[in-house]
C-alpha cells in the first residue's frame, strides 16, 4: 500500500526517475560533450537500461561551446552513437535543465515516448561570465556589461545589501550559509569543493562586490548531469515498483510588472499602469510547483535551491515558503536547513560546493533529490526523505522548480 508514504499514492501526471548520473564538477579542461556523455552513461547504468532502449533524448543547451552546444540533444545522441531516437534541444539559461526535464515529461505523458534520456553539460570559462561577442546594442545582456560593467555577482550583491537593509542580515549570517553548504559538499563525491570552510575563512576572502566576498559567490564549473525518465507503466513493467517520481515541473514566466531588478536588466518594469502581483517571481515559481504537486512546504524533507550567492539561498528559504519574509536567518541560525535539521537545504552542498555548470545544474539538483529519496545519499543522507523540491532562477525571465516524491 503506497498511500501511507508522504509522497502519497501515485497520482496522474507523474513520471518515474529510473536513473540518475553525473560527471563530477570541476575544472577539467575538456569539452562539454565528454562530461554529458559520461553523465548519460552513468544514468543509463543506474537505470539498468541500454542507450538503445531510449526512445527520446533531450539536451539542455550550452551557449559557451559553439554550434554543438546549441543542439545539445543531437550532440549527445551522436556521442552516444546515433540510434534513431527522437531528439529535442532546449535553452532557458539557468533553467535549461529543468525545461529539458519538462520536455521529457511532456513527451512521456503524451505517450510519445516510454523512456527519455535528459542530459546537460557545460565547460565553463574561468572568472566572470561574459556576454556573447560582437556589438549588440539591442541585447540587454550586452548592454549591462558595456554601460555598467554589471557582472552577475553585482546583482547578487544588490539583493544581499537589500536583505541587510530590510531584515538586518549581516555578512556573518551570509558566511554561515557557506559554512553549512561546504560541510555538506565535503560529503559529496560529485562536488568540486569538498572541504569544510569556516566563517573566518569567508570573512578573510576578498570582497568581490560589496557586501559579498569570494566565498559568498559560486564559481563557474565544468560538469555534466543526466536522468533517465520513464512512464509509470514502463517502470512497473521493469520491476521498479516504487521509483522516485517527478510530480511537478514548474517553468512559469514572470508577471508584468516585475519589481525586482533581475539579471540582465538595467531597470525593472514600471508599476504605474498595473499593480504588481503579491510575492516575487521566485515565489511564483515554487507556488506553481506546489500547486501542481498537490503538496506544500510543510511536506518537504529537503530542498535544493540555486545558491548563486550565500545571501540568495536565504531569499529562497522565503520564496519556497520555508519561513516568512525576513525570517531566513532565524531558520539558518536554528540549524533547520543544515544536514540533521528539520528541512535540509542544499544537502548536496549546493552551487557553493559545485560551482555553476549552467545547463547541467537544474538536472544535478534532481539527481540529488533522486538519491536522497531513494535513501542512497550516503553520509549526507536526509533520514526518511520522502518529498523534495528544487528551485532556480536564470536570466531573461527563466526559472524552474521540480517536485519529486517517493
Amino acid at each position, binding site marked *: 500500500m503506497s498511500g501511507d508514504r508522504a509522497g502519497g499514492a501515485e497520482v496522474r501526471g507523474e513520471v518515474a526517475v529510473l536513473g540518475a548520473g553525473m560527471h563530477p564538477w570541476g575544472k577539467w579542461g575538456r569539452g562539454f560533450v565528454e562530461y554529458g556523455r559520461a553523465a548519460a552513461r552513468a544514468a543509463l547504468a543506474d537505470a539498468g537500461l541500454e542507450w538503445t532502449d531510449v526512445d527520446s533524448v533531450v539536451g539542455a543547451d550550452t551557449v559557451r561551446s559553439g554550434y554543438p552546444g546549441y543542439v545539445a540533444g543531437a550532440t549527445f545522441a551522436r556521442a552516444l552513437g546515433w540510434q534513431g531516437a527522437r531528439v529535442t534541444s532546449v535553452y532557458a539559461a539557468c533553467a535549461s535543465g529543468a525545461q529539458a526535464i519538462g520536455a521529457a515529461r511532456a513527451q512521456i505523458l503524451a505517450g510519445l515516448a516510454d523512456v527519455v534520456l535528459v542530459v546537460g553539460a557545460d565547460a565553463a570559462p574561468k*572568472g*566572470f561570465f*561574459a*556576454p556573447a561577442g560582437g*556589438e549588440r*546594442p539591442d541585447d*540587454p545582456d*550586452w*548592454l*549591462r*556589461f*558595456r*554601460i*555598467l*560593467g*554589471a*557582472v552577475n555577482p*553585482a546583482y547578487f*550583491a*544588490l*539583493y544581499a*545589501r*537589500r536583505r541587510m*537593509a*530590510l531584515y538586518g542580515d549581516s555578512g556573518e549570517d551570509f558566511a554561515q550559509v557557506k559554512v553549512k553548504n561546504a560541510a555538506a559538499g565535503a560529503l559529496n563525491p560529485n562536488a568540486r569543493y569538498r572541504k569544510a570552510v569556516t566563517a573566518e575563512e569567508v570573512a578573510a576572502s*576578498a*570582497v*568581490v*562586490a*560589496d*557586501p*559579498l566576498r569570494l566565498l559568498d559567490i559560486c564559481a563557474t564549473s565544468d560538469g555534466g548531469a543526466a536522468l533517465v525518465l520513464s512512464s509509470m507503466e514502463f517502470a512497473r513493467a521493469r520491476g521498479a515498483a516504487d521509483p522516485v517520481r517527478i510530480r511537478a515541473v514548474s517553468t512559469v514566466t514572470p508577471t*508584468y*510588472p516585475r*519589481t*525586482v*531588478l533581475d539579471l540582465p*536588466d*538595467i*531597470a*525593472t*518594469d*514600471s*508599476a*504605474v*499602469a*498595473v499593480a504588481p502581483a503579491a510575492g516575487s517571481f521566485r515565489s511564483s515559481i515554487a507556488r506553481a510547483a506546489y500547486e501542481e504537486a498537490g503538496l506544500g512546504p510543510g511536506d518537504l524533507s529537503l530542498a535544493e535551491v540555486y545558491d548563486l550567492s550565500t545571501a540568495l539561498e536565504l531569499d529562497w528559504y522565503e520564496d519556497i515558503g520555508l519561513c516568512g519574509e525576513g525570517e531566513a536567518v532565524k531558520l539558518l541560525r536554528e540549524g533547520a536547513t543544515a544536514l540533521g535539521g528539520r528541512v535540509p537545504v542544499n544537502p548536496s552542498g549546493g552551487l557553493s560546493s559545485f560551482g555553476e555548470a549552467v545547463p547541467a545544474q537544474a538536472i544535478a539538483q534532481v539527481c540529488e533529490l533522486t538519491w536522497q529519496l531513494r535513501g542512497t545519499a550516503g553520509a549526507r543522507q536526509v533520514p526518511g526523505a520522502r518529498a523534495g523540491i528544487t528551485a532556480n532562477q536564470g536570466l531573461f525571465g527563466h526559472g524552474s522548480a521540480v517536485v519529486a516524491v517517493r
Partner: protein
Amino acid sequence: MERTRTPVVQGWFTEADAEGGFRLLGTRCSACTAVFFPREDAHCRNPHCPGGGELAEVPLSPRGRVWSYTDGRYRPPAPYVSDPAVPWDPYTLVAVELEAEGMVVLGQGAPGVTVADLAVGMEVEVVGGVLHEDATTTWLTWQFKPVGGVA
C-alpha cells in the same frame, strides 16, 4: 584634438546641459500610461494594455531613492571598456527607485561616490557623466550621486 562627445547609447538620456537639467529618457504608452526604461519604441509590454496607443518619449524623474547598491572590485569582462595597463579602480553601482515611474533603474555612481557614501532609502539624483574616453571619443553615460553631495 577635441574628442567627440557621444552617448554610449543613443536616446537614453538628454545632453548634460539640457534645459531642465540632465534627465534619463524613457517612453510612455499613451493607451495605458506604462513607462519603459530602457525605452521601448516598438511595442507596449503591458499585457493588459488596451492597445492602439503610441510610445512617446518622456523624461524620467531626476531624483529617486536608493533601492540597493554595490561596487565592482574586479575588472569586468568586455564589452566593458577599461585599460588593462592601468590598475583597476572600483566603481559603484546604484539601483535607484523612481517613485513617479514605479520602477528601479541601475546606474554607476558619479566619480568619488563609494558604497560608504550610500544607504538604502537615501535620496540621489541623476547626473550626466563620462563612461570612458578613447583617442577620438568621450563616451557619455548617466550616473547617480547623493543629493547634497558626498560627505
